[in-house]
């Protein structure tokens, strides 16, 4: 099995699906001639030409809405947000248009489109460029929201997203692009279904529930906990909407303790939803209250010292595990 970076895995998924279906096209800022800000689309302009790899002006509401229209008649747009923070400008088209079409048309039309790009903190990008918006999107019926943490999932889930007939928000994380891992690209037909969580690490004493980059933070926390004789299981949720609660609950039935970890602002983030569901459904299995670790409830400051305060790290996770006892 080839070893690829997360970035290269995404690109391979785009290539597979563009080869498979001529109705798939890419649109976004600087994705073509400039090869993509994070180089996900590198080489694709030369390979597929300007009609399928479209450099868009800085008009997120415009090109997102245009993609919705094109998808309503069956094209399969893959929209790149240079960063998910800029998708805020296109919220109206995502929420009022894309998410509503299938329902408002009584099933006559659907919107087979993907909106993908990096979400979450990078490095000192300050308050306007560091948003984690997956929780906002996962609040909206009609959207699907996925948050892969590994190169194999990035590959398999992007292919699933492109083949899906519904609007999919596909959140990457700037800190993951260089991550390497084995990716089963050989057959061209490997896909990862939505709504199926993954056990990233087995354990018996506490379940750490996470997604995207926080999965590796939880794995690091599990290493630290292990030194203290605590065996942590890490559940990589992979997809927020649909959400695989079965796998999460099954793990908690085994460990009897849960801590939910997410990079987004702590208050009202998607981890709060997961924690609430665990509280509702696993009450009898729990030996302790559900723990929660999220980003600080502040706009992200530029200073690296302060920024690092905002983003959950493995020590914060360990502290949360200790706190629930």
């Amino acid at each position, binding site marked *: 099995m080839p070893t690829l970076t997360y970035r290269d895995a995404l690109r391979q998924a785009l290539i597979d699906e563009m080869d498979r279906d001529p109705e798939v096209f890419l649109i976004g800022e*600087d994705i073509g001639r400039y090869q993509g800000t994070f180089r996900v689309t590198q080489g694709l302009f030369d390979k597929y030409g300007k009609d399928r790899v479209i450099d868009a002006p800085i008009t997120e509401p415009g090109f997102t809405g245009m993609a919705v229209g094109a998808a309503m008649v069956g094209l399969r747009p893959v929209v790149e947000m240079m960063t998910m923070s800029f998708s805020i400008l296109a919220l109206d088209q995502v929420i009022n248009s894309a998410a509503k079409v299938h329902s408002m048309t009584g099933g006559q039309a659907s919107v087979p489109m993907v909106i993908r790009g990096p979400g979450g903190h990078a490095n000192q990008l300050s*308050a306007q*460029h560091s948003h984690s918006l997956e929780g906002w999107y996962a609040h909206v019926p009609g959207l699907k929201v996925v948050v892969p943490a590994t190169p194999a999932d990035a590959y398999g889930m992007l292919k699933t997203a492109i083949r899906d007939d519904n609007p999919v928000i596909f959140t990457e994380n700037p800190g993951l692009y260089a991550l390497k891992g084995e990716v089963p690209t050989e057959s061209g037909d490997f896909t990862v279904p939505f709504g199926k969580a993954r056990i990233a690490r087995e354990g018996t004493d506490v379940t750490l529930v996470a997604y995207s980059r926080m999965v590796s933070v939880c794995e690091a926390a599990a290493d630290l906990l292990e030194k203290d004789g605590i065996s942590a299981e890490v559940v990589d949720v992979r997809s927020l909407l649909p959400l695989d609660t079965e796998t999460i609950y099954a793990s908690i039935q085994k460990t009897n303790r849960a801590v939910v970890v997410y990079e987004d602002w702590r208050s009202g983030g998607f981890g709060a939803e997961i924690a609430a569901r665990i509280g509702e459904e696993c009450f009898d299995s729990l030996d302790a209250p559900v723990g929660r670790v999220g980003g600080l409830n502040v706009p992200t400051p*530029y200073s690296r010292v302060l920024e690092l305060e905002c983003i959950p790290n493995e020590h914060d996770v360990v502290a949360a595990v200790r706190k629930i006892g």
Partner: protein
Amino acid sequence: MPKSVKQSLTQSPTEIEKYFREMVLIRKFEEKCNVAYRTGKAGGYLHVYIGQEATGVGWINSLKLGWDYVIAAYRIHAFPILMGTEPVACMAEIMGRVDGPSRGKGGSMHIYDIPRGFFGGWGIVGGHTPLGAGLAFAAKYRKEDRVTLCFLGDGAANAGVFFETLNMAALWDLPVIFIIENNEFAMGTRLEYHAADTELHKRGFPFGIKHERLDGMNVLQVKEDAQRIIDWVRENQKPYVVEVMNYRFVGHGAADNDQTLYRTAEEVEQNKERDPLHILRKIMMENNIMTEEKMEAIESEIEEQVEEIYSQALESPHPEKSEVYDHIYTDMPVEKGH
């Protein structure tokens, strides 16, 4: 095309020397910022103004400083410095230190000096243009004769919100000047690939806003045009759209290290003829305003000044961790912890 180099000088030698000093300061300050980035003293997104100095100098020098308002996007280091903010404070902000105006929370893209009328400092392309209209609205509402300058890039001129803003500015006769700095690139995308009509000043036309394309490289010409337009807006209390032709000689940001994807080395070389410092040096020599020796002396003096700015900024401490909770609300604390 920009108007040709002017030879009959209307500005005094003292004024011209001031512009020269300011342009050299910005150039050297920006070069030093790139050094700060390369050596890990600054991070994030950092965009410098090299090649665009004459635009900032010409326009800011035509304002009533301390009275008029200025707002811009993220390529902004020059504006507060020209408006009187201590360069050390700006450098400290760029390095994320507590002596920056935002105490290190803003960084290169988010520098503000509200008492001096500089309103930053915005990272979402086009997002600040209605704020510019809002500043002008407030001045008009209070019957003050303040003029607002709203700087934006050629890429930002495509943003939907900019069109909405132009409509409002015209509808309500707001005293705001939108200065589209056409440096020919929006990140890695050339003008002709992002704008259907590349004459961006025409953005004003559908709204009945006066609009012009102007030179941004000869600071003396820029200053004359700027003064004329600012005076007109102050007098007539109406908006204006200006497209200023300049050029970005460096990468989009400090991390943009493959410029061959959107321009050739020859193109950059050719444009060096238009370098605003080169043009001003030529004018000063041809008109016997300054000797080459004096120019060099000024340049090395400013180079030393920038070294001093840099080392002073480096002495400024990083914020205390507890500051992460400061300034979220004016009147209540935020919930703490992860």
